[in-house]
């Protein structure tokens, strides 16, 4: 090496440049290696995220399908409602399924094809005749032959986005209005279709325009924005920016422009609805304009495009002037880029914002029920397992029961608040009442309706599942059941002592329960103590049977929560949700067969292949004979006891069984009961746990009555167990009666437990009869 003018460079200087060069090379290599590894890691992450979001289409959830067969209890009016519910339109048109024609009590329907668990059902043309509330005939219009059994396609009730548990209204690229796509490109990324993920010139321009204080463009391409959207934390560090750039490049390497754009359309954050994030233009169109994306006008599309830059800053609800300005800026960019004409621009600029007052509806009209479906799915599936494309979930929901429950709750709560507002009711606040309703089928445990609050469209706190409140008197039937299960000690007429009681439990303060009316009632027949919900008699009965025994029965009936093993629990000092209570009463309503309450029947793949069947399952957990007696006592509670008020809604022949429940200071108002074909629980109260001023009877029971009256219930006629006999009793003496005894009642007894002696009022042949009976005993 020669340095300078031929003078040789000293040896020691020769080493350093090479060393430096080698050192630099090493550093460079190491840096490149690190970068390569980093890039590989990012590459993996990008694909994982992107594939995950792209292919996790929401599961489609359906209500139960309506079964049609000759003899079905279904009126022409109800059938018309059901057709409307699934969107069937009047007027048959050639081969278009989903249409019908009606002439009085006769219908011709062209059904939509659908694949059920047990196979596909093709589109059919059906003729139906109704009379006197029944479907009398159903034939195939093609050949006039009777059709034995057919299902109407079920109502679509919403989507579940399993992986991320958020709502989406997913759209395909070809469903997006061209104006919106053009606007997006014009405003956010003019060179979208030509760059490779980042736009260096765009970034520079943005930097310059930011420095100069003008400019519509941000520096990020749509690709970069999509990448940014994948991260939850909006860091603004250099490292984040650098990562973002690499990921954008990688994304473009793996996926096409249209794919990326479609995902962007469905992913980009566009605002907040209380606790729900609005992602994607499909959902945004619904949220801001209550419209489908494809129905948006130019101005509306421009607004949404404008909001991409800052959905909170440009929130049209909170900052309408800013939003309007931003929208018009977007329109301007579209005009400048040649996507719209001057005329279109001017017309759109004059249009009002057009946003609707916040609709609370998400992507489902039944958020509380869908919430339960989601939870029950997760019992069997991990979130990852649900990443299949478009699972079809068939549920147990009965739209008619759901509508009845929702209407009953909201109208009755409004009425209750109006009553409270009247001056004589003192200081209780005349608003803020909330409630929950659960309706189920007693034999199968299928949940027919679930209402989580008085505003059923709002996806908020699901009181039916999550509001845990003391159940008060609703626990009493379990105490009485426990007693009746020992027929040698207790029958429906056994006298109970309702006199003052002080209970001492080790380590606890003395407990002195009081009745609601503040008095005591001496000796009362067991069934009356339950019918009138006497606290003291019940507490004494429960203590006699043993608290643990009662709790064991509650456990058998399906209560999984902790129940404090103290006497106060006998009177319902235990917090349960309305769903828990519904499970308990389902066990009574079915005669002792617990059927786990479920919302899902089956799950199919998008192609209609069966995936999972949620089987009918029952377990005989309680002896049917005492359950039968308990039901009779609860029917008495409705006929003559605290449930009497139900007669305003239900005719006596329904013979419903039910229990009112009121907690301390009237904080909770409950009613749980059953008819021949339904079991239902209603809770009314306040979220802040303040008093409501309503008892179970004046509050929740009115909702229950209203709900049932809309559902045409079947009378409650449980089958009589083989070891139960019906005996006429004279209430005064508690002995057997005959026709000569006035006021005699017929009551069920477990065989061998009924009184053997005849009452004094029975006819004079009494002694002979008693003797005769003795012969045959």
């Amino acid at each position: 090496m020669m340095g300078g003018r031929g003078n040789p460079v000293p040896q020691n200087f020769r080493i350093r440049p090479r060393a430096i060069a080698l050192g630099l090379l090493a550093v460079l290599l190491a840096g490149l290696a690190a970068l390569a590894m980093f890039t590989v890691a990012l590459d993996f992450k990008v694909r994982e995220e992107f594939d995950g979001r792209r292919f996790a289409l929401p599961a489609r959830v359906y209500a139960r399908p309506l079964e049609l067969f000759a003899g079905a209890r279904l009126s022409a009016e109800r059938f018309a409602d059901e057709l409307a519910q699934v969107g069937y339109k009047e007027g048959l048109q050639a081969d278009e399924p989903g249409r019908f024609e009606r002439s009085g009590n006769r219908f011709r329907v062209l059904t939509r094809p659908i694949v059920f668990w047990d196979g596909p059902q093709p589109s059919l043309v059906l003729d139906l005749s109704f009379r006197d509330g029944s479907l009398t005939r159903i034939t195939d219009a093609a050949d006039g032959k009777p059709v034995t059994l057919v299902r109407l396609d079920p109502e679509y009730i919403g989507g579940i986005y399993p992986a991320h548990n958020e709502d989406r209204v997913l759209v395909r690229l070809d469903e997006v209005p061209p104006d919106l796509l053009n606007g997006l490109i014009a405003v956010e990324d003019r060179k979208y279709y030509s760059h490779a993920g980042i736009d260096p010139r765009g970034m520079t321009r943005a930097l310059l325009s930011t420095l100069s204080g003008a400019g519509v463009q941000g520096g990020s391409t749509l690709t970069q924005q999509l990448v940014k959207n994948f991260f939850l934390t909006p860091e603004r560090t250099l490292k984040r920016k650098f990562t973002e750039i690499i990921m954008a490049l990688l994304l473009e390497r793996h996926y096409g422009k249209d794919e990326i754009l479609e995902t962007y359309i469905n992913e980009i954050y566009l605002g907040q609805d209380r606790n729900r994030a609005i992602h994607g233009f499909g959902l945004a169109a619904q949220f801001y304009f209550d419209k489908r994306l494809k129905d948006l006008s130019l101005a509306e599309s421009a607004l949404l495009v404008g909001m991409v830059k800052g959905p909170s800053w440009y929130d049209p609800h909170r900052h309408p002037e800013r939003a309007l300005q931003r929208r018009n800026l977007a329109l301007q960019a579209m005009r400048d880029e040649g996507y719209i004409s001057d005329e279109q621009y001017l017309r759109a600029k004059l249009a009002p914002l057009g946003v609707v007052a916040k609709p609370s509806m998400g992507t489902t009209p039944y958020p509380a029920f869908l919430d339960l479906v989601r939870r029950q799915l997760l019992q069997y599936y991990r979130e990852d397992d649900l990443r299949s494309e478009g699972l079809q979930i068939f549920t147990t929901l009965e739209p008619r029961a759901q509508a009845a429950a929702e209407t009953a709750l909201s109208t009755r709560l409004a009425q209750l608040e109006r009553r409270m507002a009247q001056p004589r009711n003192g200081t209780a606040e005349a608003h803020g009442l909330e409630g929950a309703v659960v309706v189920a089928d007693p034999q199968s445990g299928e949940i027919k309706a679930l209402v989580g609050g008085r505003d059923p469209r709002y996806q908020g706190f699901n009181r039916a599942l999550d509001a845990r409140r003391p159940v008060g008197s609703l626990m009493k039937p379990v105490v009485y059941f426990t007693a009746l299960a020992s027929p040698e000690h207790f029958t429906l007429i056994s006298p109970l002592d309702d006199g003052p009681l002080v209970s001492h439990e080790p380590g606890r303060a003395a407990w002195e329960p009081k009745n609601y009316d503040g008095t005591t009632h001496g000796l009362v027949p067991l069934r009356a103590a339950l019918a009138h919900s006497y606290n003291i008699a019940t507490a004494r009965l429960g203590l006699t049977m043993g608290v643990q025994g009662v709790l064991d029965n509650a456990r058998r009936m399906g209560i999984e929560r902790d129940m404090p093993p103290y006497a106060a629990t006998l009177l319902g000092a235990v917090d349960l949700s309305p769903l828990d209570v519904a499970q308990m009463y389902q066990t009574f309503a079915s005669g002792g067969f617990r059927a786990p309450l479920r919302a899902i029947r089956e799950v199919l793949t998008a192609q209609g292949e069966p995936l999972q069947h949620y089987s009918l399952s029952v377990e005989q957990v309680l002896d049917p004979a005492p359950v039968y007696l308990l039901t009779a006592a609860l029917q008495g509670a409705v006929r003559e006891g605290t449930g009497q008020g139900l007669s305003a809604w239900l005719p006596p022949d329904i013979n419903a069984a039910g229990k009112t429940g009121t907690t301390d200071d009237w904080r909770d108002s409950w009613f749980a009961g059953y008819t021949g074909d339904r079991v239902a629980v209603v809770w009314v109260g306040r979220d802040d746990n303040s008093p409501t001023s309503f008892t179970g009877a004046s509050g929740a029971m009115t909702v229950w009555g209203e709900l049932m009256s809309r559902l045409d219930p079947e009378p409650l006629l449980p089958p009589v167990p083989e070891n139960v006999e019906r005996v006429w009793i004279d209430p005064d003496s508690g002995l057997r009666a005959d026709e000569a005894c006035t006021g005699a009642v017929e009551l069920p007894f477990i065989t061998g437990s009924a009184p053997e002696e005849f009452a004094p009022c029975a006819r004079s042949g009494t002694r002979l009869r008693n003797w005769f009976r003795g012969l045959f005993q």
Partner: protein
Amino acid sequence: MKDTPSLHIALLLTVALASGCATVRAPEPPTSSHNTAVQVLLDTAHAALEDGRFASATAALERALRIEPRNPVLWQELAQAHLRAGNHAQAENFAARSNTWAGGNRALLASNWQIIGEARAARGNAAGARQALERAERFR
């Protein structure tokens, strides 16, 4: 009429015997259903069970039960299906459920107790199985 206890006894005995006879009816044949739809589903279930297609059989029976939840034959068929599939606990419960709707139908009651007996035996409850099978015998 003179109050003669012996005449009363004779009359009462005759009445008792006569009414006793009246309750002993010929056992009802195991009814299926008056409802064609349910009958069709029942037939579907039978066919599926013959083929060993347990899932199809139970699906058809569950669908039938939504139409006629109080039909003891349907509950029994479900019990049979579960027994054949080895779900012994479920089989016993469904048979017990069928019993509650069976009324006085001895043939049904006998079959149900038979199922219960077999299910208990399969789960190692020999004493319970014996009791159930004895009950089945008494109904035959």
